[in-house]
């Protein structure tokens, strides 16, 4: 049981690391495209790692109801498809409207 708790804690710590790094990238990067580059991948991986850790927690601690975390598995699947698609749609819309990409030496915007 200690091993399972340690594995769940490891998954949660990895997910929190990626989530916080994505948020810091959203704050610190100089451009719209670079900000989406930071968050579009870090958020997907971070949320998916947290959900996978919680699935492991459920399977070992509440073993009487093994059908409940199927919802969480579907949620991981949906996030892996939907979040990059939304990021791509937003970035394509910004490119069509005419937001200029940032080059070295420009102002932050």
């Amino acid at each position: 049981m200690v091993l399972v708790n340690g594995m769940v804690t490891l998954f949660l710590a990895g997910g929190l690391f990626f989530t916080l790094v994505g948020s810091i990238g959203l704050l610190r990067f100089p451009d719209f495209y670079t900000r989406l580059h930071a968050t579009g991948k870090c958020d997907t991986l971070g949320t998916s790692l947290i959900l996978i850790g919680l699935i492991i927690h459920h399977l070992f601690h509440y073993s009487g109801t093994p059908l409940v975390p199927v919802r969480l598995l579907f949620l991981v699947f949906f996030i892996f498809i939907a979040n990059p698609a939304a990021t791509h749609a937003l970035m394509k819309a910004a490119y069509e409207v005419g937001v200029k990409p940032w080059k070295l030496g420009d102002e932050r915007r």
Partner: protein
Amino acid sequence: MISIFLISSMLIIFAIFLSLYRAILGPGVFNRVAAVNVIGTKTIALLVLIGYYTERPEFFDIALLYAMLNFIGTLVFARYLERGELWS
């Protein structure tokens, strides 16, 4: 395990506040929409963590619904900003 869930929820709320800076002060519409999308994705993880903290699995259904609404909202907003109208 319960205290680990509480600490994780607090760290996710801290990340949400970091993103909220970009959602409020970000220059232009696109930065704000991207920040709102990020906040919605973090909220899914926060809802599932709250569901395990209070031991109520009803929160998983709310998280599923929130994921779908977040995705569709971002897509509709991107289409509206690209074309200037929704139905055409």
